[in-house]
């Protein structure tokens, strides 16, 4: 009996050492205190709004990552291929957008640019006007341009990191430049950039609450509204922190799976 129990216990010790049990206990106790000790009766009323806000948050995140990445490709390419003004423009773009706070850029686009555009005579009768009135196009624009600056820098490194040999091999096969780019250069660069890009998309997710400051009714805006209605200081904030914690965790897991699928070493 004891001879059998010992290795089991030792194995258990390894997975579940005493300190880890203490941490888990503290974590569960905190969670219990948060759930029972604080008031949550306001929550059901806000759930539908929160769900809408959640979807808006995710949509803005996804749109800005996709658009940002598409802008990042020429930005990175320009810095590798060009030696002239294109390169300098691209470098200046990345430096400027990375050197200023995203919050400031959001305000600049929504209140600055937006208010300026609405003064253009006749703009109120154009087909674009319904969109220009909204806040989300400006939020997506600012977030995409910002993401592009970071991703552009990453893609520059990745494009530069692809060996000459691979590209020359492609050319030797008689591939056109476009074909070489799409079949060899881009896939290899992407594979190299994937871990850093993945990290950047996580950062982008955490930037989404900022768009609430330009009246986009996303998740944090709903939380913020519930804080005013209920006059609770912590509960709504803890809730959204928890939601983001789970979201980030899920996203990191998903991205890790993608990375495993495409990484060179594991093949």
């Amino acid at each position, binding site marked *: 009996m004891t001879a059998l129990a010992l290795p089991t216990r030792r194995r258990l010790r390894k997975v579940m050492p005493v300190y880890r049990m203490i941490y888990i206990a503290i974590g569960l106790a905190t969670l219990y205190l948060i759930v029972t000790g604080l008031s949550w009766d306001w929550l059901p009323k806000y759930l539908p709004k929160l769900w809408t806000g959640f979807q808006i948050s995710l949509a803005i995140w996804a749109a800005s990552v996709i658009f940002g990445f598409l802008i990042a490709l020429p930005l990175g390419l320009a810095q590798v291929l060009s030696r002239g003004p294109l390169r300098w423009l691209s470098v200046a773009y990345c430096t400027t957008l990375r050197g200023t706070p995203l919050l400031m850029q959001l305000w600049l686009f929504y209140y600055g640019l937006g208010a300026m555009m609405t003064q253009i005579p006749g703009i109120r009768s154009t087909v674009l006007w319904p969109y220009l009135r*909204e806040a989300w196009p400006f939020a997506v624009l600012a977030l995409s341009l910002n993401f592009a600056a970071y991703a552009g820098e990453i893609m520059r490194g990745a494009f530069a990191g692809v060996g000459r040999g691979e590209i020359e091999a492609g050319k030797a096969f008689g591939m056109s430049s476009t074909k070489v780019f799409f079949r060899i250069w881009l896939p290899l660069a992407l594979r190299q950039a994937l871990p850093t890009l993945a990290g950047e998309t996580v950062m982008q997710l955490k930037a989404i609450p900022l768009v609430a400051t330009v009246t986009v009714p996303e998740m944090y805006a709903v939380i913020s509204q519930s*804080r*005013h209605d209920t006059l609770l200081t912590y509960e709504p904030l803890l809730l959204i922190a928890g939601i983001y914690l789970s979201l980030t965790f899920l996203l990191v897991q998903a991205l890790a799976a993608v990375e495993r699928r495409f990484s060179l070493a594991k093949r």
Partner: protein
Amino acid sequence: MKKTALTLALAFGLAAPALAQDLKIGIDSAPYPPMSWQEADGSFHGFEVELAMAVCAAAALNCTHEGVAWNGIIPALETNKIDMIVSSMTITPKRQEVVEFSDPYVSSNAIYIGHKDFVFDPNDPEIIKNTRLAVQTGTSHEDYLTRKFDGQVDLKIYQAQDEQLADLVAGRIDVVLSGRMGSLAFLSSEEGKDFKALAMVEDETYPPLKIGAAFRKGDANIAKFNEGLKTVLQNGTYDEIANKYFDFDVYGMPKP
């Protein structure tokens, strides 16, 4: 980790034990003329600022002003960052559950502001449905609109009064519900010349507003503040300050 930061911060002299008699008046850091605004040199101006100082002087309280974000002004009071709120805060039963108000010092109304040619009627569901309605976050107006139009209309929620007025001028929103006092400066300004009060809230669930100073519950300074307010009302200081900003009776209640 936080303790390290604390000790270091204390060592760097970033935190100082508070002087007991110093009262910090929390005020929205976004401009809300003519009630309150901050000049480029950092000084606070406006009717409420002057009035609060006069009341403090009459009550022999030592007061200073501190800019706070409106959307966190009650938490700032609860966590001792400020000691009272004199920032056009309407006395509402809900707020009274967490803070304690002084006697009211201003009466106001909630008004719908919009372009003078805009057709608006708050009681016509058809019109409401096609109106882009905006309101400042954390105000009793927001509370009222969500109550009244729940599900019927998408409200645009702004962080500050100046932002929603800027978007009103830009044509991104049609109508703003706001306090009458905080809209006067805009309506009489050059950019506000095409805008007017389209309607006044006439609803028994949202009676005319009484604005008071908010304190933490059970604060002994409330009595002192009320005493001071009474003094400035009686000795004419209140009218003297009010006449600088308004040409009508802002107190709107029988004077004590």
